[in-house]
């Protein structure tokens, strides 16, 4: 059984007066296995963000189901959702979403504190993580005192510290310079190699290249998928670029 199963997911937005219906997602179906690193690509308006919001349980689908380890997210009640999110999902955002009122350390502790964990436990969890992410020196600084790359690494630490089943990343390299972006992608690969499942929405071909699988979405449907497999980085880059060109020029190919 796959870790994440997405079946016939539909999301229809109804405009204010109910006259216009916009299909954001139209029958999306895919699976993500444990330990996979999936990148989702697509143009603006293709439905990527809607998909991510539904996976993150921030939004509810119009129909279809999302199963994380067999449990249907859409069926969770309002009160269960937050605990579910806290225990099972980790988030990395484009704009970091660190709280200015907390030090980097406290930002990373936040989800653990919310789950009522003891201080010793949190310290033990953070120690190896901080070393791996290279943020040991900035733990007691505040978000406005550190660089974007450092902020994003802190955000990754916050996402990982709860041992989530799935990490959802929304354009994680979008606000970073190329060096920081490369560094972050290397980190993603590293934690992925340690067994962490990651689903990342991105615009960046470079970012998508580091994933094991790339999924393309167009007009609310899964348009195409490619696997890294034995491909070299350059081959992968080529393939992705081709498909993106196809997407942009209006190809109509389904799997």
């Amino acid at each position, binding site marked *: 059984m796959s870790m994440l199963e997405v079946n016939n997911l539909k999301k229809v937005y109804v405009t204010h007066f109910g006259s216009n219906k916009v299909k954001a997602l139209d029958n999306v179906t895919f699976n993500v296995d444990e330990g996979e690193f999936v990148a989702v690509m697509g143009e603006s308006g293709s439905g990527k963000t809607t998909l991510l919001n539904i996976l*993150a349980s921030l939004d509810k689908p119009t129909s279809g189901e999302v199963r994380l380890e067999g449990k249907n997210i859409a069926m969770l009640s309002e009160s269960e959702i937050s605990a579910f999110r*806290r225990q099972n999902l980790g*988030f990395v955002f484009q704009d970091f979403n660190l709280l200015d*009122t907390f030090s980097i350390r406290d930002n990373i502790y936040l989800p653990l504190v*919310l789950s*009522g964990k003891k201080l010793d436990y949190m310290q033990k969890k953070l120690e190896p993580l901080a070393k791996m992410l290279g943020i040991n020196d900035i733990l007691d600084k505040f978000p406005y005192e550190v660089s974007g790359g450092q902020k994003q690494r802190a955000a990754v630490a916050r996402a990982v510290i709860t041992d989530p089943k799935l990490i959802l990343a929304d354009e994680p390299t979008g606000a970073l310079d190329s060096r920081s972006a490369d560094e972050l992608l290397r980190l993603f690969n590293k934690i992925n190699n340690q067994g962490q499942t990651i689903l990342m929405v991105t615009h960046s071909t470079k970012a998508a290249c580091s994933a094991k699988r790339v999924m393309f979405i167009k007009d609310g449907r899964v348009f195409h998928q490619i696997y890294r497999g034995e491909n070299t980085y350059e081959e992968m880059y080529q393939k992705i670029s081709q498909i993106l060109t196809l997407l942009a020029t209006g190809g109509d190919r389904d799997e």
Partner: protein
Amino acid sequence: MNNRHFFMRMSLSNLKLNKQTYIPFIFTSVFTAAMFYIIVSLSGNPDLENTLGGSALKSLLGLGTWVTGLFAFIFLFYTFSFLFKRRKKEIGIYNVLGMEKKHISRVIAGEILIVFLISIILGLVIGMLLDKLMFLIVAKIIGAKASMGFYVSVEGLVKTVLLLAAIFILIFLNSIRQVHFNNPIELLKGGNIGEREPKAKWILALLGIICVGIGYYISLTTDNIVTAMSTFLIAVVLVIVGTYMLFVAGSIAILKLLKKNKKYYYKSSHFISVSGMIYRMKQNGVGLANICIISTMILIMLASTCTLWVGVNETVDRLYPNDVQVTARLPQAKAEMLFDNLENQLKINDIKTENVLKYRSLEVDAEQKGNTFYTYGDNNVVDSNMRTLYFLTCDDYNRIMGTDINLLSDNQVMVSAPEKDYKGDSISINENSYQVIKIDNQNLKTVPEKGSIYPSQFVIVKNQQVMDKIKNNVENHGEGLLNDEWNYVCNANVTKEQGERIIDNINNNLSEEESYWVNCNFRNVSEEAIVGMYAGLMFVGIFLSILFLMTMVLIIYYKQISEGYDDRNRYRIMQNVGLDKREIKRSIRSQVMTVFFLPLIVACAHVAAAFPLIGRMLEGFGMMNIWLYVKVTLLALAVFAIFYAAVYTLTSKLYYKIVN
């Protein structure tokens, strides 16, 4: 051609776009204009001047004008600069889109002009209508007949327009300054620049504690009304300064301590609120201190003025235990003539007299040191050991009380001290010592106290020779107050009109110098003056309370809105990280509760600490019933707390709405 129209249209549409913040501001300035007009108009109302006690009220209102004006100025300025900060981004966009700062200034000028015109027109109309209403209410309270004519105060109109114009010009200049000294990028960023975590300022916090402590100490150790009057201002200033320091520095220092305690800090219920509060206090320490001080002022003002009003009958009873009370500092023959004349007048007016008493008394101010009273020396008026001594002869005492006590020797006296119990076995007046024979303190009630500012004591001596000896002794030392008086008291049903006529007649029979030494009091005449004055005080108290209350509500309103916008992003992030709505709500509530009830709690502490001081000041107005003051204060507190809670509930709904 249509440049001007274009800018005006833009100003108008800006007003509409920002109506959520502009409407409360307009409401504030309309209300401020109306209030200011009313208070100026009332203080200049000729009808009011003609009522009894009106002149005292008038000068009080004159003072109120200044307070209101100053308050209006600070408040409108503060509110608008807050409003304007929120719009920095919008102005930055105009700038980026190619509008010159000159053009932006024109748009802003247009907006401010429109708000000014609305405020002044609505404010004056509402002011004039309310003015009439208020005047009828005051007149009703004082018991004067108010003429119903419609009175428009030109002075009020002019002053209100001038005040508001001055405020708005300064508001405009300040906004222009902000536009000009910022570059577009800074304007675009607006309030979004990451804020530094505030540092704990221990010294400032400590200073705050010391200031408030000294203020409290002054109040708690004041046992004398003269001292109360002179130290009141010092205590008030110290407590206000201290309150600001405590709220700004002390609160952050405490939160930092909590944060250092890791076991406490890393609990989900404390984690968010402690860190959030540190930032909140940095921004809002001053605002909260404002709320605290305003609350304190309202409570003390309402409680003290209402106590005076509620206790007015008691006060009149205490100051005028007899219907007729005449004292004369004249030679015996002259005094007897005066009293004969008085009795004659009473008879002419067909007034029956009862319990007529004539006696001689000696009034001396002295400083008490142990059992000795010194009428000389460094008699500092603010010394809390000052006493007023009234000497009576034993014969007069027996006549007044209907007793038959004999003092055996010249060296024996009886002491009655209704306010500060005298416990010594002997008493010395300067160098002369007397043996004290105990009597019941309650006995001397029928002898009128003269409303001395110091606690008073009666000393009953054997005879006139002893009294003269004391008088000579005091005179020889040559300092301090010494009044040798003839007193006439009786009970009689004298109406106010009769009383006034008799006072006139008596004064007509005296030379100008003599009439200066004669003090005629008819209870019914004096009562009306006192009632008038206290009613006026209460009116001013209520009036200023309403003004302060309005200010407070608006401060709270703006605070909730600004915090809502500031916190919106924080709560969104926390929701993403897995904080559910219920937890968010709980965390918000605990923060908001602390932030809003802290000022109320501190205000209660201030009110409690001010108790002795205000109590002494009320004594200065002749109000001795401290329990009445306690009761009225508690009642005022209850009403205020309910009101405060209501404001809090309503505004926090708004906050939730913004945050979600």
